[in-house]
């Protein structure tokens, strides 16, 4: 951490010395800017920002009291870490012009150089600076999702290093392939409206691979460890849902050129609603105990599933996508996880992996050219045959492969240098006290 900090400092100094490197241009092509679009995207960016603290609460409420601060910090700290990574080079890797034969973006935006008030090809009616900030918020929350799998045992400094590696070697290339100029997955016709594969599948599978590498929590015996604060979970879920409006509707990148923002807004809310009801119904059928945790989880998996499809499907399809995602994830978590015996602490894979894969495939089932002209082949259920489904499958497989392999490799490599897990004793004490030297709540009234 110390060394990383020094490295950061020197980069900053370097930039200060090379004049102009990071100076954001203000002389924007003002004529092209649409203030309504810009206001909209400013809001969308703020909303997606809020998702990461929302996730911190969602996850924080779910762990045991002794690990809540570590869990929240794992999400919260990424706002710091990924912001700096993105500004220095991440944005350029993801959205720079194709380099290395399309594997990654070029270096023209290093240090946000030239990223200012003028619009760019990605979004012609808003400042590029705003587009870059919007995309930053996606880059922040993606690795934060992974933490749900391995919290309550992972070493914090190792986590920081892992997050930096992962966002650079998985997120940035994936974003480039799917959304970057000339990205090969996009060219191939893969549909991912707001990040079903880039965000959810990639993080979900990274979580799964990570827990396979690092192993179970010491006291995990296939029965869940109950949340220590369920109201936090609902508040977190609500913040995520609220933020997801920015995530999905904002992915239209404006209001002036299409009505996709509104379509995505509707399908997003409808899918989340359907999945919430569907999850509660499954719980009811199962043991007559519909839960607040269930309603919150249902909403989240509904949001995950609609993410890639939001701007490509009809309202009815969105209902169907939501209704189906809940039982799928429920089954994955309550049956598959137990059967296979891995310890995905907060179901990062169970919610984002399974929900994300379903969403990506559902896009191939339900996508509709009448909704969005970017859809070249109707989905299977709309009579378009298997083509789009195949492309979607490919993009899922590519994502699973890239994220799975890099996650595995990175952790195995780090494990050669240093331990991935805290000591057994620290795990028992709880990471809050042992790693961070702070206790979430004061118990004794004297304190």
């Amino acid at each position, binding site marked *: 951490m110390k060394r990383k900090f020094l490295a950061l400092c020197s980069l900053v100094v370097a930039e200060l010395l090379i004049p102009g490197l990071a100076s954001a241009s203000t002389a924007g092509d003002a004529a092209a800017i649409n203030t309504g679009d810009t206001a909209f995207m400013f809001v969308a960016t703020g909303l997606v920002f809020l998702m990461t603290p929302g996730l911190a609460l969602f996850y924080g409420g779910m762990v045991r009291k002794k690990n809540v601060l570590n869990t929240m910090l794992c999400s919260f700290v990424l706002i710091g870490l990924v912001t700096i990574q993105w500004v220095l080079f991440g944005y350029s890797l993801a959205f720079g012009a194709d380099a290395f034969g399309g594997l990654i973006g070029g270096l023209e935006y290093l240090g946000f150089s030239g990223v200012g008030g003028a619009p760019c090809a990605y979004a012609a009616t808003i400042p590029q600076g705003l587009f870059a900030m919007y995309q930053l918020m996606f880059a922040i929350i993606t690795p934060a999702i992974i933490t749900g799998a391995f919290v309550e045992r992972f070493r914090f400094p190792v986590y920081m290093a892992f997050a930096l590696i992962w966002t650079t070697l998985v997120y940035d290339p994936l974003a480039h392939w799917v959304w970057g100029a000339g990205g090969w997955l996009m060219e191939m016709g893969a549909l991912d409206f707001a990040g079903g594969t880039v965000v959810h599948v990639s993080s979900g599978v990274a979580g799964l691979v990570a827990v396979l590498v690092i192993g179970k929590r010491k006291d995990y015996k296939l029965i*869940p460890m109950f*949340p220590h604060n369920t109201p936090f979970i609902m508040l977190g879920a609500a913040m995520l849902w609220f933020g997801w409006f920015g995530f999905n509707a904002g992915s239209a990148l404006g209001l002036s050129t299409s009505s996709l923002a509104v379509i995505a807004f509707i399908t997003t809310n409808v899918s989340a609603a359907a999945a919430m009801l569907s999850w509660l119904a*499954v*719980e009811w059928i199962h*043991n007559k*105990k519909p839960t607040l945790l269930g309603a919150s989880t249902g909403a989240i998996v509904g949001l995950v599933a609609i993410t890639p499809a939001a701007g490509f499907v009809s309202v009815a399809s969105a209902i169907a996508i939501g209704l189906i995602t809940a039982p799928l994830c429920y089954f994955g978590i309550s049956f598959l996880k137990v059967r296979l015996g891995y310890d995905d602490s907060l*179901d990062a894979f*169970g919610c984002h992996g399974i929900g994300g894969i379903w969403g990506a495939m559902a896009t191939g089932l339900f996508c509709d050219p009448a909704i969005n002209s970017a859809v070249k082949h109707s989905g299977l259920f709309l009579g378009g045959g298997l083509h789009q489904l195949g492309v979607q499958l490919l993009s899922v497989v590519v994502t699973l492969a890239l994220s799975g392999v890099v996650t595995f490799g990175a952790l195995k490599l780090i494990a050669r240098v240093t331990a991935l897990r805290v000591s057994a004793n620290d795990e028992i004490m709880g990471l809050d006290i042992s790693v961070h030297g702070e206790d979430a709540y004061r118990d004794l009234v004297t304190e």
Partner: protein
Amino acid sequence: MKMVIAVVRPEAADAVRQALLAVDIHKMTVSNVKGCGEQPGYVESHRGIVVEVNLLSKVRFEIAVNESFVKKAVDAIIQGARTNNIGDGKIFVLPIEQCYRIRTGESGNDAIG
């Protein structure tokens, strides 16, 4: 001097206090505990996994009294806490060898009330 320790249902705690006041026992110390015994627990469910929970919330009274008040205390507690259903709780009477009132330094029987 005796220490009367009672573990009762949370919803009975108020009635117990009223019953104690009614027999002129005003001083007591109360805390939250979890208890298990014959009373059946309940089921918690978590994303499709169902777990039986056996430790139930109870309230614990600690009441130091002179010998002459022991029966009154016990009767009052029973009166306040009894529902005749499993889980009503227990009363334990332990000997106290000495007692001090911190404010005055008094000790013995005088200090208790």
